[in-house]
Every structure is written in structure tokens, then in C-alpha cells.
């Protein structure tokens, strides 16, 4: 008797749930880069609390995100490496940046505290090429005349998994060193001339702090949260800068977004006295003419909300929000480019 009552109640509840489901807007679905996952998750939580609309984001990696959006299984894809404009045009996609982050070199050297050491691009490239093998090399000494540098072997630590972090790092080294560009190049994974590979930012961080004389590169958020031993880096204007949110914002603000083709801007080696030289943005990929315009419209509403009210949340997690001028430009792109099958803009 009781069981029957329960079963009946369950049935009624199930029917009621299915009946009310279509009233609620469908969850927005996205997949891709792992680097922005924490902030997308945070935004999704806050957005759901305010609007009731959920976001389902799978952090499967940039490569996976590109594959998923091209297979049209998700409303948007996310990638740390911007797609080439030609590739975007061929597949009918547009891309836009959401937040800025960057790479920071971290070291493990006795008697050297965070920010004590200054390195420049060519020196970093030669270290990662294996040409500078010891910490008391003249190239490092010239940059740090006052520092006490031990005669210790340099242990290079790099990422073993493909990563947007690696893309930003190798892209910077390619811009500042012709040798690096021809011998190694820039990609999410490269053939490293020297060093040990570690999985994820946490793996690199762990290996650097375990190994005396080590140098590696990790996401800025990781440096800040773990108080890691970062070095200052000399930027394009010849100024040595420390990694902080102002330096990242400067790099994003000084970049020439307005004249970019499909926002194909890589924020490494940007001009400006305060610009951090190894910054990078993370990108969203969407179809110009989505199969499900309603879902795409919801996604745009979500990102529009994130640009307007998500800045504080991003800063809490040590991401840098996009400058206001860039956001205005992105919104114009949405209005001009993303349309339903009738050619009507989804932004209204």
C-alpha cells in the first residue's frame, strides 16, 4: 500500500518534471581548454544563481574543444591557442577572447627570493635550448650584476602534456629568439631540446620546487596562489617587469585588437613599459550560423553577462578581465557576425 502510494507519487513527480522542463531554457554547453575552466565554472555558478540558466562546460583540453565545436556537439568551443583566420573562415567559426592570463618563469635557487632574479627573452631561449647550462653563465650575470649566482647546473622543467601554457611560452621564445623559432618553434607541444617533462602546472611547480637549480614556467595564478619563486622578465620596451595583474592588463590593453583579423592576437612580446611579455588570452569559438540559434543566443547572453559583471570573480581567481574597449569591439562582432538561418542577428 505504502509502496504503491510512493510509486504513484514518484510517477506524478516524473511526469511533472518532464512537463515543466521545456519551460526552462536549455543549459548552454561548451567544451575545451582547461586553463580557463575555474573561471568559467565560477561564472556559471553565479550566472545560474542570477538567471536560473546553467552552463555545462567540459574541460577536455583545447584540442578537444576545437574538435567538439567542429563536430557541432557543443554550443561553443574553448581554446587557449587562437585559430588561424583562414581556418575560421573555412569552418564558418568566429572566435573572441574572454580573459587574459600568462606564463611566469619560476626558479629554485638557494638564496634567491621571488623577484630577485631578472631574465630576458634571448637568455630564457638559450636556457631552454640547453645552451646556457649553469646559473653563473655570463649572460645571466650581466642581467643580475648584484645577485650571488651559484655554479650550479640548470635543470629545465617543461610541460609533458599539450597545453596552452606551453603555446604562450614557446610563442614568446620564438618571437625573441630566431634560433628557437627555427630549431623548436611554437605550439601546444614541442620537441624540447633539454629538460624533464611534468604533467600540468602543478607537476611543473612540484618538480621545480623539488629540484635544486631548476627553472620552469607556470600559469600566473599558480605563482600567486603558491607564492612561487618567480623571476622578473625584460619586456619589449627594455623594462624589467614583475608579473602582476597590472602588467597583464597592460599587455592586453596595448595589443592592437582593433586591427586584428578575427582577434588572432597573441599577447606575447607586446609593446608598453608596463607590459608583461609572456601574456596570453584564452578564446571562445562559435559558429556564425549556429544550428541551434536559441542555445547560441543563450551562450552570448552568458558571455555578455560575464564581461559586464564577471570581472571581480575573474580577478579573485587571478585572471585578468578584458579591457572595456576590447569588450565593446567583441560585442559589435557578435552583432555583425552571429546570425540565425534567416540572417537575423542573435544580439537584441
Amino acid at each position, binding site marked *: 500500500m505504502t509502496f504503491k502510494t510512493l510509486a504513484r507519487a514518484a510517477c506524478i513527480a516524473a511526469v511533472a518534471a518532464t512537463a515543466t522542463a521545456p519551460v526552462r531554457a536549455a543549459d548552454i554547453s561548451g567544451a575545451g581548454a582547461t586553463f580557463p575552466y575555474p573561471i568559467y565554472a565560477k561564472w556559471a555558478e553565479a550566472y545560474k544563481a542570477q538567471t536560473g540558466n546553467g552552463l555545462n562546460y567540459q574541460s577536455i*583540453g583545447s584540442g578537444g574543444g576545437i574538435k567538439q565545436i567542429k563536430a557541432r556537439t557543443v554550443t561553443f568551443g574553448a581554446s587557449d591557442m587562437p585559430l588561424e583566420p583562414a581556418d575560421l573562415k573555412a569552418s564558418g567559426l568566429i572566435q573572441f577572447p574572454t580573459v587574459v592570463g600568462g606564463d611566469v618563469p619560476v626558479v629554485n635557487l638557494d638564496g634567491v627570493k621571488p623577484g630577485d632574479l631578472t631574465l630576458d627573452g634571448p637568455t630564457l631561449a638559450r636556457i631552454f635550448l640547453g645552451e646556457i647550462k649553469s646559473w653563473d653563465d655570463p649572460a645571466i650575470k650581466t642581467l643580475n650584476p648584484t645577485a650571488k649566482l651559484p655554479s650550479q647546473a640548470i635543470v629545465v622543467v617543461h610541460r609533458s602534456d599539450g597545453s596552452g601554457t606551453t603555446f604562450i611560452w614557446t610563442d614568446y621564445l620564438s618571437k625573441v629568439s630566431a634560433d628557437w623559432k627555427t630549431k623548436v618553434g611554437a605550439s601546444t607541444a614541442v620537441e624540447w631540446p633539454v629538460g624533464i617533462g611534468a604533467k600540468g602546472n602543478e*607537476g611543473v611547480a612540484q618538480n621545480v620546487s623539488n629540484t635544486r637549480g631548476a627553472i620552469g614556467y607556470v600559469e600566473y595564478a599558480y605563482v600567486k596562489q603558491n607564492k612561487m619563486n618567480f623571476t622578473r622578465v625584460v619586456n619589449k620596451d627594455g623594462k624589467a617587469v614583475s608579473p602582476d595583474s597590472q602588467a597583464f592588463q597592460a599587455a592586453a590593453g596595448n595589443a592592437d585588437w582593433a586591427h586584428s583579423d578575427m582577434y588572432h592576437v597573441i599577447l606575447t612580446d607586446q609593446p608598453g613599459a608596463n607590459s608583461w611579455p609572456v601574456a596570453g588570452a584564452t578564446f571562445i569559438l562559435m559558429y556564425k550560423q549556429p544550428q541551434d540559434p536559441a542555445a547560441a543566443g543563450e551562450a552570448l547572453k552568458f558571455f555578455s553577462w560575464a564581461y559586464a559583471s564577471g570581472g571581480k570573480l575573474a580577478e579573485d581567481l587571478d585572471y585578468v578581465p578584458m579591457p572595456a574597449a576590447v569588450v565593446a569591439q567583441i560585442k559589435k562582432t557578435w552583432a555583425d557576425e552571429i546570425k540565425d538561418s534567416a540572417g537575423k542577428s542573435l544580439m537584441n
Partner: protein
Amino acid sequence: MMVSMNEANNVDQAIMQGSEDPGRIVVTDAVLADEPAVGVSASRAGVLRRFALDDLVFHTMTRGAAIAVLILLGGVIVSLVNGSIPAIRAFGFDFLDTQVWNPVTEKFGALAPIYGTLVTSALAMLVAVPVGLGVAVFLTELCPHNLRRPLGIAIELLAGIPSIIYGIWGLFILAPFLQTWVQPAIIAATGNIPILSSLFAGPPYGIGILTSAFVLAIMVLPFISSISRDVFETVPPVLKEAAFGIGCTKWEVMRKVVIPYTRVGVIGGVMLGLGRALGETMAVTFVIGNAHKISNSLLAPGTTISATIANEFTEAVGDLYTSSLIELGLILFVITFLVLAAARYMLMRLEKKAV
């Protein structure tokens, strides 16, 4: 393994014979003796039909399960081969003997991961087989009775620890320990010995081929020791007592009686361990250093097939890159198959010799 399969077959045959057992039908006939002849044969036929139907259902279900495994295996092979066709077309057999792994220029070769897989597994077995057998011998023959259960359970618990835990332990605890204490000592001690000095050359990274072989050894140890213990316990006491009776030492009893009697089972345990070592992914990824290089030194970083796939698959952009990773998977499949086939062949020869 063979024994249990034979037993299963026997049981199977017994069941099949049972359904046609004339004894049962006699009983039915006796009960229904007063009924007209037509009714008797009808109910008898009905019962027989039911038996036949039961058997048919049972037979079909088990056969279906067996075929499902074959279909799955076939599907895996087909999709692996299909996925690796672009890489096979692009590199051919060069894939197997080149060391280059360059995602930028899209030149890929599998030699470094193949080398790393084989070397780490071989080193792991070199450590784990003697230790594992030693543990099994101690547990079955020498251990005081009140220690047997706790020790046995501890060994089996080792097998239950997820591999990621081994990886984290290897990276955070074992690697720094090896780097600070063990590796500098090894490097200093072997510095002047011709071959060993290059085998143990280079800066002490803490992680590398040797460290991952060591972690693998700990991971396969419980497989080898618990299976060996189980088969050691199957040795009839009369055999051992006879050997002790003619004055054999414990070592001689193990060497001449227990191990020859159980070698098939022991080899099975070792092969199971080797299978795990070859395919182990997470623990190795953490401690091997993930460098696509073959180096003389065992202290240097290297990589394995499964570690490479786990590291690079999510962010592999481009068809050739993905396809090369799938071909790596195919190679691992083939290596594992060859190892298992070799084990089967060895067991067959041993059995023939025993007969």
C-alpha cells in the same frame, strides 16, 4: 588456469548428460503409469522440450557473452588500425625506429616510448620477481602462523591502491628522497667504473627511468607474491614432508620440490604482473620525466607509450599527431599480445615436458 577450464568443461558435460538422463524419465513414467499412453508420451515430450529449451537459452546466453568479447576485441583492433592509417601512410616502418617526436613539424617516431616501456617493465620485473617470490616463500613456509594473515592482507592491500596514489607518492616522497640521498651516492660510487658510469650518469633529477621502474616494481609485487603464495599452498604436504624426511634443507625443498611443482602458476603470476607493468599509465607519467629521448643513463628522464598517450592526447591538434598517438596505442596492443602469446607458449612447453 588450464585446470579450472578443464573442470568447467567436465561440469558442462555432466549437465548436458543429466538432461538426457534416462533415470529421471523412468520416474516420470512410473508416476504417470495409470494415464493413457498418449498422455504419457505428451507430458514426457513436454518435459523433454522444456529441458531442451532451458539448455538452448543457457547455451545461447553463454555463447552470446563469449561472442560479445570477441566482437569488442575485434572492434578495438579495427578502430586502432583505422585510426593509425594516416600515421602509417606518412611514416611507414620509420615510425618504429626513429626517435623524433616533433608536434611542430609533425614528424613522429615511436622508438623512445617503445624503449621506455620495455626498459621500465624489464627493470621492474627484475626487482619484483625475486622479491615477490621471496615474500610468497616466507608467507607459506617460514612465517610464524600469527603473522601470516596480517602480512598476507598487507600484500593484497598493496594491489588495491589506485595507481594515481603510487604516482603522487613517487613524485612527492620517493623522487626527492632518491634525488637527495640515493642518486648522488650511486653516481659517485659508479663514477670510475666503465659501463656503470654511463648507466648511472648525469645530474640526479630524482625522477627518471630508474625511479619509474622502482615504482612499477612495487605495483606489480602484490600480483606476483599473492598468486605465488596461492599456488605454493597447493603443493601436497606429503611431497614436502618426503623431501624433509630424506634430509633436505628448506632451501632445497623450495628449489627442488615446491617451485618445480608450481612453476606454471608462478609464471602465470609473473606474466600478469608484466602485463600490468607494460600498460601502467598514471604512476609512470608522474615519475618518468616524459622526455622523448633515449639516453644511456637510467637516471635520465624518458617516456613510455601509455604515458605519452595520456599526456598528449587531450591537446593533440591535427590529424597526424592524433593518428600517431593511436598508432602508439596499437603498438602497445601488439607488445602486450606478444608477451601474452610468449607466456602461453612457454606454459604449453612446460606442460608437455611435465607429461
